[in-house]
Structure formats: structure tokens, C-alpha cells
């Protein structure tokens, strides 16, 4: 939690736009990265990011003083991703297809143009290949630095389930990365 968060929450509860701006600046990039990697689409990630912050703005006055903003925002973002995924599956079925397999970080990936090295590309692909439940845990723990208990709270899952996903995500990522794995590179 950022040191300024209590002041931000206080400001949000009073309806101060400056407090919103501070929260937006602190969490925009983190949430966007999470949303892009979960949806694999930048346009969708932008929409869901906007919805996340709209919900924050609309609930600003009702926030509890001890709210942990990171957990609150990622919970909202997670729920929006779930809703979007379900809508995608329904659309695909209505179109007569099987639920669409997620784009697997190939050259058409929106992330492909952003990476600077083969190692980064391999990393993005490895994350993209993870099934969403594992990818989500890997992102929240590995990128966001959340503790498994906090991830369980954000995702509405039991801590044991998260620990299991965490272990599998790590194993699958390391296997997918092979020689690109940072840990593997350190070991002879």
C-alpha cells in the first residue's frame, strides 16, 4: 500500500478530483498491464480500465476508510475481465464457433510490437500461453507483488486454490521459457 493511500481515500470520500487523479496516476499503468495481458486486446483493456476507474469514481464516497485501493481496483478489474470473457464466449457460440481459444502471443499479438528483446518476447509468449486462471495469479503475484492471501481475496478464491495455481503457474512458465527463464540463466 502506498504511504499516501489513506489521504487519497480520505479525499475520494470527500469527492475530491485531486485524490482521484493521484490514484489514477498510481494505478493506471499497473491495471492496464494486467488488463492487456488478461484480455490480449489493447482496445478491450482500455475500455475495462475506464470502467474500473468509473466504478472507483462512482463508489468514491462509499469507500471504507481502511480500503486497500490496490486490492479494491484489481478486484473490480478481475470481475470486468470475467464478464468480458463470458460475453466473448457467448458471442463465439452465437456465431457458431467453439469458444474462441485465446490468442497465444503469436506475431499478431498486440504485445509483440512493444517488446524490446527476444527474452521479453519469449516472456510475453510464455505468459500468453498460460491458461487465464494461472496467468492471472502469475501476474498478480509476479508483477503486482501481491501475497497469495491477497490474491485469494481479489479473485474470491480459497488461499489453497491460489497456492496451487501459483505453483502450477511457476512450473509452466519456467517450462515455457526454457533458456529464457531468468532463474534458469543464473544456474549453470
Amino acid at each position, binding site marked *: 500500500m502506498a504511504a499516501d493511500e489513506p489521504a487519497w481515500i480520505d479525499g475520494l470520500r470527500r*469527492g475530491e478530483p485531486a485524490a482521484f487523479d493521484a490514484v489514477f496516476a498510481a494505478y*493506471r499503468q499497473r491495471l492496464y498491464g494486467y488488463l492487456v495481458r488478461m484480455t490480449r486486446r489493447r482496445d478491450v483493456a*482500455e475500455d475495462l480500465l475506464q470502467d474500473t476507474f468509473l466504478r*472507483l*469514481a462512482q463508489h468514491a464516497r462509499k469507500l471504507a476508510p481502511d480500503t486497500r485501493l490496490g486490492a479494491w481496483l484489481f478486484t473490480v478489474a478481475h470481475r470486468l475481465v470475467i464478464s468480458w470473457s463470458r460475453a466473448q464466449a457467448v458471442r463465439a457460440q452465437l456465431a457458431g464457433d467453439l469458444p474462441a481459444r485465446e490468442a497465444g502471443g503469436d506475431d499478431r499479438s498486440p504485445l509483440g510490437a512493444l517488446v524490446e528483446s527476444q527474452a521479453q518476447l519469449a516472456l510475453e509468449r510464455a505468459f500468453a500461453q498460460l491458461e487465464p486462471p494461472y496467468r492471472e495469479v*502469475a501476474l498478480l503475484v509476479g*508483477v503486482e507483488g501481491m501475497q497469495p492471501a491477497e490474491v485469494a481475496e481479489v479473485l474470491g478464491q480459497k488461499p489453497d486454490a491460489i497456492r496451487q495455481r501459483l505453483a502450477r503457474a*511457476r512450473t509452466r*512458465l519456467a517450462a515455457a521459457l526454457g533458456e529464457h527463464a531468468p532463474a534458469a540463466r543464473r544456474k549453470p
Partner: protein
Amino acid sequence: MTDQDDAAELTEISRELPALDLDATTTERIAHRARDQVGRRPSPLRFVEPAIAALLVTGYLIWAVLKALEALGG
């Protein structure tokens, strides 16, 4: 391996992921739209539509009951 070990290794692996961000225009658009909603209390007009619907349904039900009673009473 403990979950702390798993978390540490995932953090190490994820360190090289590139940071993703929005372009400045999109950032400002999203911020502006959401900022406008901060602290805004819900409009009381949001009750108008459900109230009209409730009145219509209640009126229809009363009419239906009266008609049924009329039919039963001959």
C-alpha cells in the same frame, strides 16, 4: 517449494516483462471521464423509471383482480 518460493521465482521471472501504458490522449480521455464522476451523488431521477413501471404493473394487477372478481360474481 513453499508458496513464498513460488512467489519469489515468479517475481524474478516477471521482472523483465515490459511495462505497458496508454498513450497520452487515451489516458487523458479516461481520466477526464472518470474524474467527472468523482463524488457525484446518484441522480434522484434514477427512481422515476422504476416508479412508473411499478405504478403501471400495480394498476394492471388491480384491474385484473377486479375483472376476475366481476367475472366470478357474475
